[in-house]
């Protein structure tokens, strides 16, 4: 189904069980911390971001989406060496945006998910870049080539991941 503008009644809203709500983000954080040491190329992926986008789009509730993004982002910050809040802010924005978009557009098919994930990856990187550079004074270089490539890679992985996570959806 292509991306279409639909009314709220036409879009299905999903919910998830508590184990999935807690376990999937934790698993994403764990894999994100563990796998890059074994497979250095894996650091290009941002599994917590993909999980944030998935939950936000499935629930289609901006409040829920922004809190999901904030929680996952802050947890990711806690594992890193920099001040807490950089990922938190970036993922809050993404969570809010993805759920708002999910409430307006049907993003159930692979093509739509690919584009949405690519777009929100770039939004996430832009917010992170802005906060890290202008609030924390970290030296970051914006590279369109790298970020587009990384966004595409995340989008491809995201599409596969979303179809796997679709199994945990529960209709409201």
């Amino acid at each position, binding site marked *: 189904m292509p991306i279409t503008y639909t009314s709220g009644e036409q879009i299905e809203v999903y919910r998830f069980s508590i184990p999935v709500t807690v376990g999937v983000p934790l698993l994403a954080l764990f894999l994100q911390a563990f796998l890059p040491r074994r497979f250095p190329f894996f650091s290009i992926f941002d599994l917590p971001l993909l999980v944030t986008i998935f939950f936000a789009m499935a629930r289609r509730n901006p409040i829920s989406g922004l809190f999901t993004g904030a929680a996952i982002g802050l947890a990711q910050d806690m594992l890193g060496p920099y001040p807490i809040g950089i990922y938190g*802010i970036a993922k809050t924005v993404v969570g809010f945006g993805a759920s708002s978009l999910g409430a307006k557009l049907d993003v159930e098919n692979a093509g739509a998910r690919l584009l949405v994930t690519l777009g929100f990856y770039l939004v996430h990187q832009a917010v992170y870049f802005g906060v890290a550079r202008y609030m924390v004074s970290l030296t970051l270089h914006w590279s369109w080539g790298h970020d587009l490539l990384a966004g595409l890679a995340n989008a491809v992985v995201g599409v596969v991941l979303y179809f796997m996570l679709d199994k945990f959806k529960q209709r409201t």
Partner: protein
Amino acid sequence: MESVLGRYRNLIILVGVLFLQVLGLAVQVKRSGDASSTRLIRVWAVDLITPFERGLVWAQNGTSNIWHDYFFLRGVRAENRQLKEKIEQMRLEQVRLNEDATQAHRLQSLLAFKEQFIAKTVPAQVIGSSGSDLSRSIYIDKGENAGLKPDMAVITAGGIVGKVWIVYPSTSLVLMINDQSSGVGALLEKSRLQGVLRGTPDGELILERVMSDEQVAPGETVLSSGGDQIFPKGLPVGTVSRVSPGREMFLSIRVKPAADLNRIEEVLVVAEKQEREPAVAESGTRARAADILAQRLPSVPDKPAVAGTVPLKSAASGVSAPGLGASSKPQANAAGKPGTGTGEVLKKVVQKTAPADSANRGGTDSAASGSTTNSIPSSANPSSANPPAKPATAQPKPANPPANPQPATTDDSPH
């Protein structure tokens, strides 16, 4: 009013949540990124994630060990033979290096240098990372319980890795040297130029603060300078890979790290450093700076007047020939054997005392494997306690020099 709030409810909550996070971030930044202010919530996240990492690493290593230790033993016999041959070669090399080290220690002791020893190391295993490609940090499986503290150096056999950044009860976050917020005092091995090694956002290493009129060649080894008070001096950091003009009047020197920072599995945390004078001075083999310099410059002919002090020094080291007094030996040596000056004499001294010296350094050598260095108390040397009374008693007993490593004839004349 209520309708406005209801209409923009989502947006207001978003702004509120973002504001709170920005506020929290600003507070942390104002405190200069001090991680202790957010320690409690970091502990929660780390305690939630690291047990799984630790378990997975344990299972992975267990499986790997079973396979490699019990099943996949092909070529082990040949490898064992090669390693034994290599050990023999390294032993020969060690003898030579011991001599050099002994001489260096003597010079340092004469100049009252303080040496920094790695007294205690704690081996640790890498169990994870920060999970971001924008920061370069790793988690190790040792923390407060193992005696780790912030700012301890983390090294491998290959070179330095980073420093302990945040310490938790059973894990620690290590900031690697290629993180953009890290800095290491470094120097170039040959030219001895000093600079500051910094990480880049891309995870590369750049040596800064080297003036652009200096000559730096790719391939040159970079060592830690010890100036940062974290990494002991002389540890390998990396090699120069590219040199280009940098900002202002400085060079931009790219450095390839000595340790493979992307694939580290085990590290050593330098838990204790000791600063003390070289132990050689206390082993009874005192040497004069002039003698050591003479050894370093063997082509310089001896002057009889200056060489007059040699026998006393040689006797002090326990190698003077029998029957040679303090006054007769120098002339015989200088006149009869022009080719064998003070340098040659001292070289023999060094060769004969090397085993004792190397034994003294045993504790230092073993420090890298986690043991504590044995300190040698300076008061243990009786020859230095009452020097003026001893010289006369030493003259009749020079016949068995190696057996007497602490000849009472220590020359305590001013150096």
